C-alpha cells in the first residue's frame, strides 16, 4: 500500500512539473532558511555552555549609580582578591585582564616575525583554568603562577613555531615582555566569548597596566578587568550579593564612592546576551530570528496548502475511483500525506545541501565559525526530522482531509466545485497570512535600513569623511611629534591631530569632576577626550564660546561641550569660561577656556555625554589625519612608509574614521542584512504561491472570461477581475501587518536615543512595494488570460 502511495505520488509530481517546482522550490527555500536560522540560534544559545557546572559560574560586574545608572563588566582589580581571601562562598575564583590587538614578535634567530593578534591576550590567575574548560594539551596550569610564562593555543603554537615544539620557546609581547611558552591549550571552541589565545600570569599585569595592578586602586574600573567565581554548592548569588555592602564599607572610606559602586553577580549564561555588560547579542534578536524562521516555514506551508487544495479538483476523478474501489477516507488521507512527505523529503534534502553551501557566507556575515553536519550533530538531525514531520502535516493535512472527504459520486462526475475544497475563503485567508508576513518583514527592513541610513548620514557635529586614524603604539613624544609634523608637510594632508580617541569612539574615559568652587564633585561622570590644539580643526568641531586651548603637553586648559554647560546648570556657555575645573580626584585644577557645540560622541543608542577636552600627550594613542581624498592613493602608502620608519618594531594598521563609526552599528548592519535576505526569500516564496494561485484561477475562470469578452468586456475589465481580488487581499494583509510591524519596530527603535520617526510613509512604502511585487507576479498570467480569444476558451469548455 505504502509503495503504491509513493508510486502514484511520484508520478503525479512528474506529470505536474510546474506545480511540483513551485511546491518544492517554496518548501526548499523555507526549509533552507530555517536550517540556517536553527544553526545560528543554537550556536548563539550554546555560548560557553561547555564548562563544568555552568549554572554556578558568575561574573562579578559593577553598576555605577551616578545621576543615571551605567554598567560595566569589570570590577576594581583588588575586588577579586578580597573576595577570595576574606569570604568562603567561592569554590574557585579568578581574575582576568584582557587586552585586544596584541603585538607578538617571534625571533627565529635570523629574523623577527611580527603578528598582531586581534583576539588579544589575557592576564589570568591559575584558577581561571579550573573555572573554565580550556584544557592544556601540554604543560601544567600551575606554570601560570610564575612570571614570564605564557600559555598559547595549539593554533598559535603552530603559527609561531611551525614544525617545532612550542614549549620552552620565547615570544615577545608588545615589544616589552619576553615570555616562555609553558603550556599549550587545546584550540578554543567556536562558541565562547573568551576569545584570547594567549595567557600570561595575572601577577604580570603590572607590565602592561600598572594602574590596575595597584592593590589599593578600588576606584578605577575597566570593562576588561573581570572577576569570575564558581559558587560552592548550596550558595545562592543573592546571599553573596548581601555580603557586598560590608565589603564596600571596609574598602571605600569615601561615602560617595559607596553610593556609586554596586557589585552584582552576573550568571555565565547571561554574559553573551546582556548588552549592559557588553554582551554580543541580545536574546530578543535571537528570538526574533527564530520567529522569522517560523514565518518562512509558515509561508512555504501556506503555498503548499493553497496550491494542493486548488489542485485537488483536478484529482477528483482519481479520488472518486479509489473510493468506488473501496478506498477508505483514512487511506486516501494517508495517501496524500505520503505525497506531501515525499515533496517535503525532497525539499529537505535539497535544503540541507543549500544550507551547507550558504553557511560559509553566513559565517562571513556574522563573523562566526558555525558548522553544519547531519551525522555529527544529533540536534540538527532531530531538528530536521521534526521539521520534516511538522511541515508534512502542516502542509498536507488540510488538502488531505479535503481530498479524502470528496463524495465519490460528485468526484467521478466532475461536479465538485470551489465549495467542496473549502471554498475560496480559506485560501484567501492563507494568502492574507502570507502577505502579512511579507509586509511585516518589509516594514522591518524599511525601518532598520532607515535608522542605519539616518545614523550614517546625519551630521554628527564633526568631520568623519576623509579622516584616517593612525595608531601611536608608544607614547614617545619625540616620535609622535616627528610623525605628526612629517605627515602635515605632505601634499594633500589638510590637518593632523594627536589624540587619545576621535570625537565619537568606543574607547571612553569616564571621570568625576568638581566645578569651580563647588564643595562636592558633580553627581555625574564626564567623558574625557584628550587631544592636541589641532583636535578641533582636524575634526571640524565648532567653538561657540571662548577660545581653543594653547599648545601644551599637559592639561591646564579645558574645552567643554554644551551638554556639560547645561548639566552644570549654567545659564550660558559664556558663564563657564574662566572657571576652574578638576577632572579626577587629586589631579591639579585647570581652567575652562572654551565651549564647543555638541557632537554625537557615542552611537545613536547613547545620549550625548557631558564632555571635557584637554591635552595630555601621555595618553595619546592616535594620529588623526584629515586628507584630500583625491590624493588618498598616493598618501596612504606614504603614511605606511613613514609610520614603519618611525615605529619599526610595530605592525602598521590604519582605519578610516567613517569605518570606525560604522562599527557602532555592526549588529544593526548584520541584522539588516539578515532581514533583507529573509524578507526577500519570504516575498519570493509568496510570489511563487501567488503565481500558482493566479494560474489556477485563470484556468478556472476561462469560461467566465470568455463569456464576459463575448458580452463586451475589455482587456482592462478582465485584468480588474484578478486585480481587485488580489488588491483586496493585499490590503487586508496590510491591516494585519501594519500594527504588528509598527509595534515591533517602535520597540526596536526605543534602543536608539536618536531615531527616525515611525511615520505613515514607512507603512505606505511597504504596502506599495507589495502591490508592485504582486502586480509583477500576476501580471503576465492575467494578461495572457485577458488577451485569450474568447471563441477558443468557450470551445474548450
Amino acid at each position, binding site marked *: *500500500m505504502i509503495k503504491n502511495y509513493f508510486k*502514484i505520488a511520484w508520478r503525479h509530481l512528474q506529470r505536474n512539473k510546474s506545480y511540483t517546482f513551485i511546491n518544492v522550490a517554496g518548501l526548499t527555500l523555507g526549509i533552507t532558511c530555517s536550517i540556517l536560522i536553527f544553526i545560528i540560534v543554537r550556536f548563539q544559545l550554546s555560548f560557553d555552555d561547555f564548562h563544568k557546572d555552568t549554572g554556578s559560574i558568575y561574573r562579578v560586574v559593577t553598576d555605577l549609580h551616578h545621576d543615571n545608572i551605567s554598567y560595566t563588566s569589570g570590577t576594581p582589580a583588588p575586588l577579586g582578591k578580597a573576595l577570595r581571601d576574606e569570604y568562603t562562598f567561592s569554590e574557585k575564583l579568578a581574575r582576568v585582564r584582557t587586552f585586544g590587538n596584541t603585538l607578538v614578535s617571534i625571533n627565529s634567530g635570523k629574523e623577527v616575525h611580527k603578528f598582531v593578534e586581534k583576539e588579544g591576550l589575557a592576564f589570568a590567575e591559575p584558577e581561571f583554568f579550573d573555572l573554565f574548560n580550556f584544557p592544556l594539551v601540554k604543560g601544567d596550569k600551575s606554570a601560570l603562577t610564575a612570571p614570564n610564562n605564557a600559555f598559547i593555543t595549539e593554533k598559535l603554537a603552530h603559527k609561531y613555531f611551525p614544525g617545532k615544539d612550542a614549549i620552552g620557546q620565547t615570544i615577545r609581547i608588545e615589544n616589552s615582555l619576553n615570555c616562555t611558552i609553558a603550556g599549550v591549550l587545546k584550540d578554543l571552541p567556536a562558541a565562547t566569548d573568551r576569545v584570547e589565545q594567549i595567557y600570561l600570569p595575572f601577577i604580570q599585569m603590572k607590565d602592561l597596566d600598572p594602574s590596575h595592578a595597584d592593590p589599593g586602586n578600588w576606584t578605577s574600573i575597566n570593562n576588561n578587568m573581570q572577576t569570575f567565581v564558581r559558587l560552592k554548592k548550596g550558595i545562592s548569588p543573592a546571599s553573596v550579593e548581601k555580603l557586598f555592602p560590608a565589603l564596600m564599607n571596609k574598602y571605600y572610606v569615601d561615602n560617595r564612592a559607596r553610593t556609586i559602586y554596586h557589585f552584582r553577580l552576573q550568571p555565565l549564561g547571561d554574559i553573551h546576551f546582556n548588552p549592559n555588560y557588553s554582551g554580543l547579542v541580545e536574546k530578543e534578536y535571537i528570538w526574533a530570528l527564530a520567529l522569522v524562521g517560523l514565518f518562512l516555514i509558515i509561508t512555504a506551508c501556506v503555498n503548499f496548502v493553497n496550491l494542493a487544495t486548488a489542485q485537488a479538483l483536478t484529482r477528483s476523478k482519481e479520488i472518486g475511483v479509489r473510493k*468506488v474501489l*473501496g478506498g477508505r477516507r483514512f487511506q486516501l488521507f494517508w495517501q496524500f500525506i505520503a505525497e506531501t512527505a515525499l515533496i517535503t523529503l525532497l525539499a529537505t534534502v535539497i535544503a540541507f545541501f543549500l544550507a551547507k553551501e550558504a553557511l560559509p557566507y553566513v559565517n562571513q556575515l556574522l563573523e562566526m565559525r558555525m558548522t553544519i553536519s547531519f551525522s555529527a550533530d544529533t540536534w540538527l538531525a532531530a531538528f530536521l526530522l521534526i521539521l520534516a514531520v511538522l511541515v508534512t502535516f502542516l502542509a498536507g493535512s488540510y488538502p488531505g482531509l479535503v481530498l479524502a472527504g470528496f463524495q465519490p*459520486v460528485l468526484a*467521478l462526475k466532475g461536479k465538485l466545485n470551489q465549495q467542496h475544497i473549502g471554498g475560496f475563503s480559506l485560501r484567501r485567508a492563507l494568502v492574507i497570512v502570507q502577505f502579512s508576513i511579507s509586509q511585516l518583514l518589509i516594514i522591518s527592513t524599511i525601518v532598520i535600513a532607515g535608522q542605519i541610513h539616518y545614523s550614517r548620514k546625519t551630521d554628527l557635529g564633526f568631520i568623519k569623511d576623509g579622516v584616517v586614524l593612525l595608531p601611536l603604539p608608544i607614547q614617545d613624544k619625540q616620535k609622535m611629534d616627528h610623525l605628526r609634523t612629517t605627515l602635515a608637510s605632505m601634499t594633500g594632508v589638510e590637518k593632523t591631530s594627536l589624540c587619545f580617541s576621535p570625537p565619537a569612539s568606543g574607547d571612553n574615559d569616564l571621570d568625576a569632576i568638581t566645578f569651580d568652587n563647588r564643595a562636592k564633585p558633580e553627581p555625574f561622570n564626564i567623558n574625557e577626550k584628550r587631544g592636541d590644539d589641532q583636535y578641533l580643526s582636524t575634526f571640524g568641531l565648532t567653538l561657540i564660546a571662548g577660545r581653543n586651548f594653547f599648545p601644551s603637553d599637559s592639561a591646564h586648559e579645558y574645552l567643554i561641550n554644551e551638554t556639560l554647560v547645561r548639566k552644570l546648570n549654567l545659564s550660558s556657555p559664556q558663564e563657564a569660561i574662566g572657571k576652574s575645573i578638576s577632572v579626577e580626584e587629586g589631579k591639579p585644577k585647570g581652567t575652562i577656556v572654551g565651549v564647543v557645540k555638541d557632537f554625537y560622541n557615542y552611537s545613536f543608542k547613547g545620549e550625548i555625554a557631558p564632555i571635557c577636552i584637554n591635552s595630555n600627550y601621555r595618553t595619546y594613542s592616535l594620529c588623526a589625519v584629515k586628507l584630500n581624498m583625491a590624493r588618498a592613493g598616493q598618501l596612504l602608502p606614504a603614511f605606511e612608509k613613514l609610520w614603519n620608519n618611525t615605529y619599526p618594531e610595530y605592525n602598521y594598521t590604519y582605519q578610516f574614521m567613517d569605518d570606525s563609526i560604522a562599527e557602532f552599528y555592526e549588529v544593526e548592519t548584520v541584522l539588516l542584512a539578515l532581514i533583507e535576505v529573509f524578507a526577500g526569500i519570504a516575498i519570493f516564496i509568496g510570489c511563487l504561491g501567488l503565481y500558482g494561485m493566479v494560474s489556477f484561477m485563470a484556468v478556472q475562470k476561462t469560461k467566465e472570461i470568455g463569456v464576459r469578452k463575448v458580452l463586451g468586456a475589455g482587456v482592462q475589465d478582465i485584468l480588474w477581475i484578478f486585480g481587485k481580488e488580489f488588491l483586496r487581499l493585499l490590503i487586508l494583509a496590510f491591516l494585519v501587518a501594519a500594527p504588528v510591524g509598527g509595534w515591533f519596530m517602535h520597540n526596536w527603535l526605543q534602543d536608539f536615543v536618536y531615531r527616525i520617526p515611525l511615520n505613515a510613509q514607512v507603512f505606505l512604502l511597504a504596502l506599495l512595494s507589495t502591490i508592485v511585487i504582486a502586480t509583477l507576479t500576476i501580471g503576465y498570467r492575467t494578461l495572457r488570460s485577458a488577451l485569450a480569444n474568447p471563441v477558443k476558451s468557450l470551445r474548450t469548455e
Partner: protein
Amino acid sequence: MIKISDLQKVYRTEEVETVALNHLSFEVKEGEFVSVMGPSGCGKSTLLNILGLLDDPDGGSFIFNGTEVAHFNERKRADLRKRNIGFVFQSFNLIDELTVFENVELPLIYLGVKGPERKQRVETVLDKMQIMHRRNHYPQQLSGGQQQRVAVARAVVNNPKLILADEPTGNLDSSNGNEVMQLLTDLNEQGTTIIMVTHSEHDSRYSHRIIRMLDGQTVTENILV
C-alpha cells in the same frame, strides 16, 4: 440478491427540491442481467449510486444479500463495496498515473491481497480480457475499447457478486461496444449478477430483463428471456 422497497431520494438546494427516486421498489435475483432504462433525469444514475453503496437513500429499504444496508455508515459501505461490487463506467475512470496492470491491481490492494497473489490474479484477468500485452501502458496510450476492457478487468478482478455498469458503451464505437457487451454477457453466464444503466436499446437486448423508469419510479418491466 437485491431487494429494494419504497426507496426514496430527494435532492434539496435552498429553493428547489428534486425527487430523484420516488418510492421505488424492485428485486434482482442472483445471476440476473438487468438493464435500467429511461430518459435523462429519471433517476437511473441515482439508483445505480445507491445500489453501488456510493450514496445512501433518504427512505425505504435496501437489502443486499439478506442484509439491510440502507443506513450503513461510510466504513461499512466501503467494506461491503470492495468485497462484493464491481463498477464499469461510461468514461472508464481509469487513473491516469497508473499503468494498466496497476489500475487493475488497485481493488486487490484495498482488499489487502498479498503481492504474489495479486500479480497472479491481475495477470489472469488481463489475459482473459486479452490486454496482457498492454499491461505496462498508461490509459492515455490505449484506445477507448481497450480502456473499457481494462475497466471491466478492474471491475471483475476481485470476483464480485455484482457488477454495476453505467452506460458501459456510451463512449465507444459499435464494434468496441459489442465487444464490451459480449464480455459482460460472458461474465453473467459465469454467474455474476449485472445491473446496467443504458440508453441503448441494442445493448439492453443483451440483458434478461429491462426496468424502465420515469420520474423516479418504475413504469414497466420487460422480461426478454
